[in-house]
């Protein structure tokens, strides 16, 4: 199977020299000892390519993960490395050119999910996925984020807090409508609450039932909770765009909302990067440890199922498999929780080959699903996931990330799957054992 060659982006509106200067400044600002160590360590062994779905499906060496961050590395060697002056003196690390930045745009945005399989295989323990995220910062500031969809999302998100440009009032209305439609009590913008659930923008558009599901479960648990429309959308498309300012703005919005109502727990939705951002990066943007806990929805469900606050009516051995969202399992340390939930649900779990921490990415993560021109490549990458799912013979594919869910549904439709794609959160909500509180 051969992939289309990486496309050339439209000409940027910023002049070349300025483009390069902005990218360089941002590249350098994003490199500390850990990233520097990573960039000094590559021994050109080529193993990262063998872990990457884009290389494996195309055999195109340009998709070698460490190759994707070449401009970042070159900037580092030229400006920050211990022997930078030697590199400059002897022309060993020439200045990155605008043309190079442009031709790297597709490698960094179209052909990388930041899934971290490469970081897992690297014998030098280089966290390549993390370096790609950093490289995106520089490209974003050089005006080289893919204009369609992703860039638009990020801009809207920065302006209004939602990639869809919805205002708080519009959110409030949406939530009340969902509550009515699904017959569930919604708590919205209450002054004080222990638990703040957040939502992903994909759920807003594609899976509104998930918001009803969260509400139903939290009501079932009998805890004090509220949605806060001033800190609501956790998707953080700005993160995958490489927009540091936007990323911080959204995160701080959620933090402030949680602080304002004295929350003890912030619950992240079924979304990979939302969890990564809030659980592992938000405190750093805040500048100090967060005064509340951050959990992913599956972690909350697992806790509730374990200590009895959530009671479900287990099913009868539905044959299902589970797709691990990269940011939750491999990168986030939350691969045990979903399996506990599936067990509690009475599911007959047929694990895929390579299930768990080293599972293949669905191909849609890290913002790739939002880049239209990347679709053929993404579809190629998905074939791996398709084969994995089909080999299990499962009737249902569960996942706990709306991005993956969307990718699986799209891919499954193209492949004429008989199996359905389902959200773990919604399934738990559907099988709750009823009590008066619901």
């Amino acid at each position, binding site marked *: 199977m051969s992939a289309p060659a990486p496309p050339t982006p439209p000409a940027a509106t910023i002049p070349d020299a300025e483009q390069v200067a902005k990218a360089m400044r941002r590249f350098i600002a994003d*490199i*500390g*000892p*850990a990233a*520097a*160590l*990573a960039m*000094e*360590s*590559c*021994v*050109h*062994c*080529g*193993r990262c*390519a*063998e*872990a990457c779905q884009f*290389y*494996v499906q195309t*055999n195109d*060496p*340009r998709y*070698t993960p*460490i*190759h994707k961050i070449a401009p970042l590395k070159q900037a580092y060697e030229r400006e920050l*490395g*211990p*022997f930078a002056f030697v590199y400059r003196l002897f022309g060993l690390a020439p200045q990155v050119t605008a043309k190079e930045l442009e031709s790297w745009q597709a490698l960094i945005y179209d052909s990388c999910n930041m899934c971290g399989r490469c970081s*897992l*295989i690297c*014998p*030098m*323990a*280089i*966290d390549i996925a993390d370096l790609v995220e950093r490289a995106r910062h520089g490209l974003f500031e050089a005006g080289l984020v893919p204009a369609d969809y992703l860039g638009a999302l990020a801009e809207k998100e920065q302006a209004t807090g939602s990639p869809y440009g919805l205002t708080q009032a519009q959110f409030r209305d949406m939530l009340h409508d969902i509550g009515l439609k699904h017959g569930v009590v919604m708590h919205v913008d209450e002054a004080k609450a222990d638990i703040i659930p957040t939502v992903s923008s994909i759920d807003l558009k594609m899976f509104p039932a998930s918001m009803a599901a969260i509400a139903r479960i939290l009501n079932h648990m009998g805890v004090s909770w509220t949605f806060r429309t001033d800190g609501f959308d956790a998707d953080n498309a700005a993160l995958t765009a490489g927009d540091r300012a936007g990323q911080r703005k959204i995160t701080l919005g959620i933090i402030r909302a949680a602080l304002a109502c004295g929350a003890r727990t912030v619950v992240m939705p079924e979304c990979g990067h939302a969890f990564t951002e809030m*659980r*592992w*990066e*938000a*405190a*750093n943007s*805040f500048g*100090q*440890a*967060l005064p509340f*806990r*951050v959990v992913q929805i599956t972690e909350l469900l697992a806790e509730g199922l374990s200590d009895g606050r959530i009671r479900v009516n287990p099913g009868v051995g539905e044959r299902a498999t589970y797709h691990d969202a990269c940011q939750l*399992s*491999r*990168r*986030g*340390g*939350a*691969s045990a929780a979903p399996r506990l939930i599936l067990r509690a649900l009475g599911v007959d779990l047929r694990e895929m*080959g*390579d299930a*768990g*921490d*080293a599972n293949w990415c669905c191909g849609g993560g890290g913002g790739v699903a939002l880049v239209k021109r990347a679709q053929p490549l993404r579809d190629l990458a998905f074939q791996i996931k398709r084969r994995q799912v089909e080999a299990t013979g499962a009737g249902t594919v569960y996942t706990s990330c709306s991005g993956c869910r969307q990718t699986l549904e799209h891919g499954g439709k193209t492949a004429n799957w008989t199996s359905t794609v389902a959200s773990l959160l919604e399934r738990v909500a559907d099988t709750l054992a009823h009590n008066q509180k619901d």
Partner: protein
Amino acid sequence: MTLLEFARGPALQASALIMIAGMAWRMAGILLLRRRPQYAASRHSLARRMGGGASLILSRFIPRRTFWPRIAVGVMLSAVFHLGLALVFFGGAPHILLVHQATGLIWPNLPKGLIVMASGLTLAAMIALIVRRRLHPVLRLLSTADDYVSWLLVFLPVLTGILLSGEAIGDYGSLLTLHILSVEALMIWLPFGKLMHSVLVFAGRWTMGVTFARKGAAT
């Protein structure tokens, strides 16, 4: 002063000093860059994070099962090369002697025949690796002059070493001179090229191990 005396004397001193200074420079230059404190709540205690760092150093030697089919050949070649080189360097009596005279440390050596065999396997693996580097599309894209220079600077000591200890070809004195000079070339280059991975591998694996243990992430 003969070339052998030069190699054993001032050249050995100079190359050792360059190697030490270069390694210190490179490590300091990396580790003293501006660091940002981590405020996110760790899943595990500091002790367990340190344990994570240490255990990743060991666990990364063996790739995960899921990756094996696509990387088995490369991993095997690399293992034969590294283990062979380790056996030769740490087991060969003259090498132990060198370390002993510099530091006082000493440990038992291996018989010469075993060293010669290990050297032979190492050379074979190195040749296979360099051929693979020229043929594999990914490796061709990634490779730089550094890769080839580093290969040569490791190949020459092993080659001159096997000739020297085999005692079948060439004059002892000349081979000894070449062997010592080639090792000195390697020492001088080590801090500046990819051979520094011999040190960076520990720092990098430790860092990832600690960072990922904080998150409970997969390693």
